[in-house]
């Protein structure tokens, strides 16, 4: 071949290999980069005052005095929001107002009874307030402003009645005045529309029955049963998403008949009368002051238990469980794998039984992991445990053993290759000195094969730590106590990621926690691998005498 052609071909080859390496790197970065970025936001983020409140209440972290001062400062800005909403409610939320009037009437009756008035006077006053109440009630439910004005005027005629002075009945007149004022400003025909829209706004600002809101519950409100509803947006990114929902209404609109619906965004303030519109501008401008975002490093994410199925808190028990299962699994895999490999290399001749055993190992390596999961359930949990007198229920031990069976073929094959690769001259040298075959294996062959065996350890380590299907039925749970023995089931990172992804809307609400779990799993495997690789290189260097 022409020399220049050969040179060109060489360069093309070099370029092609280089290109493929670059492509591979890019693909890796494209896949892992966003994942790591999102996962790291579980630890590094802008935490709001609600986050610090949650940390104080649930985990006992942070200075109580400072927190109180901070909360007081934010409350100052929040109070305006409360006032605006309450003021608007006076004209809109008629059901609440009739209820209030009825309550005042009851209270007044109690007061009268306490005063021991004569019977006829008592009946007269009761009758009067009942009339006032009923009139107010019909005024609340009227949609005609003239009618309302007339009714309220009639009610207010009694305001000068000396017998009602300094009693709780006076509150009725206050309500009446406020209502008249509010009713003049709003379109009474839209009463119900406004009430519904206001409920939605309150849901976004405080909390709805199922979802947490921007600011959290109003002070004095009884604590919600769900912990996640007791706090507002703990993270600034969450707050901004809520703010967006607060300021904009998303609607599916049919633009042309017969065409698919189109998503439209519309300013939410427009669905309210002008009297409430300043609220939106106020919240938009003062969100920072009401929540006080601060740069936060929540490293305790790695040790905390979660609250409200991963809405708050961290992944400590998951990490612990993963490590436990991995370590116990390796305790089974390493000795079994090495002994099996030693048998295959040292003690067996190449008969047809050997061929069948080797074929079995190779087939086992290709069996889907869910099959191992079912095997683990059937064999370890339901058959072996009762036989040994243990309770037949999923636990760490069963999960570890199932994972060990799963990775055994990998370990055996890697160790077999390693032991086979030891020069036979080492073995001859040892035997010529009078050593037995067992001693030769222990003292010469095994140490020489150690780097290769450690490669098998690394491979099975990653597999054990990352598998989900085999532990589905044998030892993983999505919620539960931190394991205290190997006979208890545990949470793991791999199963947790799966559970969050298929569970409910939670993963959508806290994507940082889901990605955080996945990234933590990757990092854990990376660290375990790095440790094993370091160990291998040290062993290798020691053997080579460097």
């Amino acid at each position, binding site marked *: 071949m022409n020399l220049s052609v050969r040179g060109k071909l060489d360069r093309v080859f070099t370029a092609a290999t280089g290109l493929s390496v670059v492509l591979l790197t890019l693909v890796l970065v494209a896949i892992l980069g966003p994942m790591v970025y999102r996962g790291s936001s579980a630890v590094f983020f802008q935490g709001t005052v609600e986050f610090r409140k949650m940390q104080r209440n649930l985990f006992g972290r942070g200075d109580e005095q400072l927190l109180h001062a901070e909360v007081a400062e934010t409350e100052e800005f929040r109070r305006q929001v409360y006032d605006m909403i309450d003021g608007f409610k006076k004209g809109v939320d008629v059901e609440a107002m009739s209820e209030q009037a009825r309550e005042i009437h009851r209270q007044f009756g109690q007061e009268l009874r306490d005063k021991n008035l004569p019977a006829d006077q008592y009946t007269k006053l009761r009758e009067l307030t009942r009339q006032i109440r009923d009139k107010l009630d019909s005024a609340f439910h009227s949609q005609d402003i003239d009618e309302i004005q007339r009714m309220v005027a009639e009610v207010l005629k009694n305001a000068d009645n000396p017998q009602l002075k300094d009693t709780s009945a006076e509150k009725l007149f206050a309500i009446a005045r406020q209502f008249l004022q509010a009713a003049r400003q709003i379109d009474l025909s839209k009463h119900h529309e406004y009430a519904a829209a206001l409920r939605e706004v309150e849901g976004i600002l405080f909390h709805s029955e199922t979802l947490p809101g921007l600011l959290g519950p109003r002070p004095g409100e009884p604590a919600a049963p769900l912990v996640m509803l007791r706090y507002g947006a703990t993270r600034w990114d969450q707050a901004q998403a809520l703010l967006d929902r607060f300021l904009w209404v998303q609607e599916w609109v049919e633009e042309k008949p017969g065409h698919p619906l189109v998503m439209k965004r519309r300013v939410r303030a427009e669905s309210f009368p002008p009297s409430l519109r300043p609220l939106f501008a106020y919240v938009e401008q003062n969100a920072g002051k009401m929540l006080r975002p601060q740069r936060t490093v929540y490293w305790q994410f790695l040790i905390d238990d979660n609250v409200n199925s991963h809405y708050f808190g961290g992944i400590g028990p998951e990490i612990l469980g993963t490590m436990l299962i991995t370590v116990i699994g390796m305790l089974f895999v390493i000795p079994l794998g090495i002994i099996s490999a030693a048998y295959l290399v040292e003690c067996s001749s190449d008969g047809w039984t050997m061929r069948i055993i080797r074929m079995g190992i190779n087939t086992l390596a290709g069996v889907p992991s869910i099959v191992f999961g079912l095997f683990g359930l059937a064999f370890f949990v339901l058959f072996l445990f009762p036989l040994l007198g243990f309770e037949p229920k999923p636990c760490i031990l069963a999960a570890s053993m199932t994972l060990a069976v799963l990775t055994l073929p990998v370990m055996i094959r890697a160790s077999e290759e390693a032991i086979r690769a030891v020069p036979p001259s080492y073995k001859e040298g040892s035997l*010529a000195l009078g050593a037995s075959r067992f001693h030769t294996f222990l003292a010469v062959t095994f140490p020489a094969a150690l780097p290769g065996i450690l490669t098998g350890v690394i491979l099975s380590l990653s597999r054990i730590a990352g598998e989900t299907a085999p532990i589905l039925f044998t030892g993983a749970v999505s919620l539960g106590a931190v394991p205290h023995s190997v006979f208890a089931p545990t949470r793991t990172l791999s199963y947790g990621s799966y559970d969050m992804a298929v569970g409910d809307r939670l993963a959508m609400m806290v994507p940082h926690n889901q990605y955080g779990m996945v990234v933590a799993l990757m990092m854990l495997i990376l660290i375990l691998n790095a440790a094993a690789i370091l160990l291998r290189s040290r062993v290798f260097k020691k053997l080579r005498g460097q």
Partner: protein
Amino acid sequence: MSREKKEDMQTLALTSDIRRSNIRTTIPTIDRKERTPKPAGDVCECAIIRSENFSLYYGSKVGVENITMDIYPCSVTAIIGPSGCGKSTFLRSINRMNDLIPHIRTEGKLLVDGHDIYDKRTNLVNLCQQVGMVFQKPNPFPKSIFDNVAYGPSLQGVRNKGELQNAVEQSLRAAALWDEVKDDLKKSALALSGGQQQRLCIARALATKPRVLLMDEPCSALDPIATGRIEDLMGQLQSTYTIVIVTHSMQQAARVSERAAFFCLGELIEYDRTSKIFENPSKKETEDYVTGRFG
């Protein structure tokens, strides 16, 4: 290290120095070409290794057939012959290294020290300790120098640290490696040069205090200088050990051995003093081989 131990070591070094200098003075190894073998009558006439119609077959293939020869103690015996003639097979039969190969079969007798080693009652561990072996390629274990040499003694049950140290030092001195490695006994044996590795293997074999040392082409992987050192070493060792060496180099056989055996196609053609084999062979095949007409 305690002072007593240090003194111990010094006296030990002194005595072994004296021993080595004795060896140097009593055995003329300087002029290798001129060296004449000692007459057979001077050494003990009773053979340490005696082969009586010994044959070894790999399945149906012949390894060696009908070998009858006596190997005398405290001398170097060379086995020469073309490739595939069964030299190594015979050598490896002497410490039963061939047992590793499946489907082998032996006939006849092979006596070491009067015991038939192919007898069922033979203690293989004892045999291997009596008959040490050095291989064609240096094969130190991937351990430290110290651990390599101490491997044999610790197999014999020596656990005492001082005893092991003594054994290691003696063996390394006997293999003329002590001065080169005494400062880093903890270093990996694989870091040594090829010649040093082979001498380490000799030291390792000597550490079990064998009576016979089998060498299977010990210099074929070494350069001439390292080869020279190993040959010098053999000259020193032959006063205490019986050495059987298989070699492809006829010059080497002529330089180091007292007696030589010529093997061809699995049979022993001629066995006599080296000088006779090279100068006045009684068989035609031997003459053809040593004069380079074939092989």
